[in-house]
């Protein structure tokens, strides 16, 4: 398989702080490669270097066989585009947003109109051309951002946590789009994620990142098959816990992840087990709710992050859980820091990695 781009001993430092540490990475034509690691592990910086909008402090980058001169990357930038984690749109119409890169490439108007329409269909925003991009919901804006990148048909498409700020519906639409453009348009994709679930199903290969280094690159099956080796990098990922499992009389298992937190799972397991709970699968309530869900924990809100239209909360129940709720629920429930809350999730929502 041909290599689209290659990083050789690439290091990036801001002052004394090294954020990317001697990274070697080959990106193969036609693949989806996921950079998986906790926040601050250097994923975004690697993507920015691959997009040629950030210069490496040292090391070498080759793109389509040629060494990249970072003094002028105008030519390369036409072939590699990045969708930021924080959705950014131009303060103009959806059409002008999506057509921006095509105008730069001097694509004639008829082709431009056609391409914009096609891209909008792909992200399920048909007929949105004339809408003011800034007045769309967060999820719709992120879809505009993806369409704006897709329409360029670049050799390399870079996605920084493309679904992190999205509700499940929008996230689902985007995952489908990512899969489609990779399969049908053969676009090479590198995406950063700290969503274990996403990393397991979308990419062909996973590069595990921790503290600016790539600790391992292999297929999802391999990575998730021999977890123990890189437990350190997984431990910091949202809602991923390791512990010892014990079978229960009911045919399920309980994983003791420490600090008195025992997570019930449907699989029958013994010994060391790594579990992941999708933040969207957790129900948050102010009082304990009676339900069929097997996992109920009481805790305190320790962190609130606004990801319009969602709010991400850290709830400490002995172990820190990340929970995503809509902003509307957030205000209706009148939540604040240190508020006592309950988190509830089904045993079947726990993914055993």
């Amino acid at each position, binding site marked *: 398989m041909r290599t689209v781009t290659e990083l050789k001993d690439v290091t990036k430092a801001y002052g004394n702080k090294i954020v990317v540490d001697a990274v070697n990475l080959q990106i193969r034509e036609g693949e989806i490669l996921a950079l998986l690691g906790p926040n601050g592990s250097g994923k975004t910086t690697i993507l920015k270097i691959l997009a040629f*909008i950030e210069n490496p402090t040292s090391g070498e980058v080759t793109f389509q066989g040629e060494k990249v001169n970072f003094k002028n990357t105008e030519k390369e930038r036409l072939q590699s*585009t990045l969708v930021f984690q924080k959705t*950014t749109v131009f*303060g103009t119409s959806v059409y002008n947003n999506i057509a*921006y890169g095509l105008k730069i490439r001097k694509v004639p108007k008829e082709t431009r109109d056609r391409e914009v329409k096609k891209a909008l269909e792909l992200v399920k925003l048909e007929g949105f051309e004339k809408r003011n991009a*800034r007045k769309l919901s967060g999820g719709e804006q992120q879809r505009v951002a993806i369409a704006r990148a897709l329409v360029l048909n670049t050799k390399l498409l870079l996605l920084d946590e493309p679904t992190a700020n999205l509700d499940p519906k929008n996230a689902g639409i985007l995952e489908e789009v990512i899969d489609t453009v990779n399969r049908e348009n053969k676009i090479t994709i590198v995406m950063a994620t700290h969503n274990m679930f996403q990393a397991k199903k979308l990419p062909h290969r996973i590069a595990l990142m921790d503290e600016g280094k790539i600790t391992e690159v292999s297929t999802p099956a391999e990575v998730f098959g021999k977890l123990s080796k890189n437990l350190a990098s997984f431990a910091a990922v949202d809602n991923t816990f390791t512990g010892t499992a014990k079978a229960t009389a009911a045919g399920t298992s309980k994983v003791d992840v420490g600090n008195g937190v025992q997570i019930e799972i449907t699989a029958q397991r013994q010994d060391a087990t790594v579990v992941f709970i999708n933040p969207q699968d957790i129900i948050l309530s102010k009082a304990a709710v009676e339900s069929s869900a097997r996992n109920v924990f009481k805790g305190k809100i320790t962190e609130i992050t606004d990801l319009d239209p969602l709010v991400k909360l850290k709830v400490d129940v002995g172990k820190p859980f990340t929970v995503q709720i809509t902003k509307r629920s957030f205000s209706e429930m009148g939540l604040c820091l240190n508020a006592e809350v309950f988190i509830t999730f089904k045993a079947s929502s726990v993914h055993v990695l």
Partner: protein
Amino acid sequence: MADVLGEIVDALQLIVTGNPEILGIVSRSLLFSGTAVILAILWGTPLAMLIAMKDFRGKTVIKTFLNTLIGLPTVVLGLILFLIFSRGGPLGFLGLLYTPAAIMIGQAILITPILVSIGVSAIESVDPEIMSLSKTLGASESQAQIAVLKEAASGIILSDLASFNRAIGELGVVLIVGGNIRGGGIRTDVLTTSISRDTAIGELGLAIALGILLVLILFTINIIVVVLRKASYLVELAKGPYSKLKRSRETK
């Protein structure tokens, strides 16, 4: 009191009948100040872009200096320019003193600090990601800068209007370097200088008429500014819940 009322009636008559003397003065004011704004935009906008988009040492000093210059008394600037343009001055050979050109250049210099200052803050308030966004979509350095400028458009227009406001209402520069010449071939008397002269010589009707028109012009500009502000406020409002939530979090 009756006299004053009579003068006001006279003034209104002059305005309504479209007195050619008044029309001449108003159009000269608009032309000189308008040209001054265009001149200031030509050199002020690149300067604002440079200060806002580039990181360099002494940036804060320059910004503070510009803010100080905004408050420079117009008569002081008028005096400085007089010395430069007068026969013995460094630019005396151009023969610009007491010509419309001197007024336009003088006003352009006067309004540059205000134009650049507001322009810089408009550009600096644009989401810093816009630059990277344009670049990753294929824009060259200058195309990315234009994208940022477009995002700052309403603020930039605001700075242009505020500059025009300052230019058309100032007296010091236009009086000292323009000379307030009424007779002869080339006239350099404008709204502010004419009001001052007509008041002094007792032509109160004319002075009042010009005063009313000057206020009307300023009022119109301010209405445009308010409408523009409201437009950008509406954009802010659309992002509303986010900023509200952020604030409530900060206060906790």
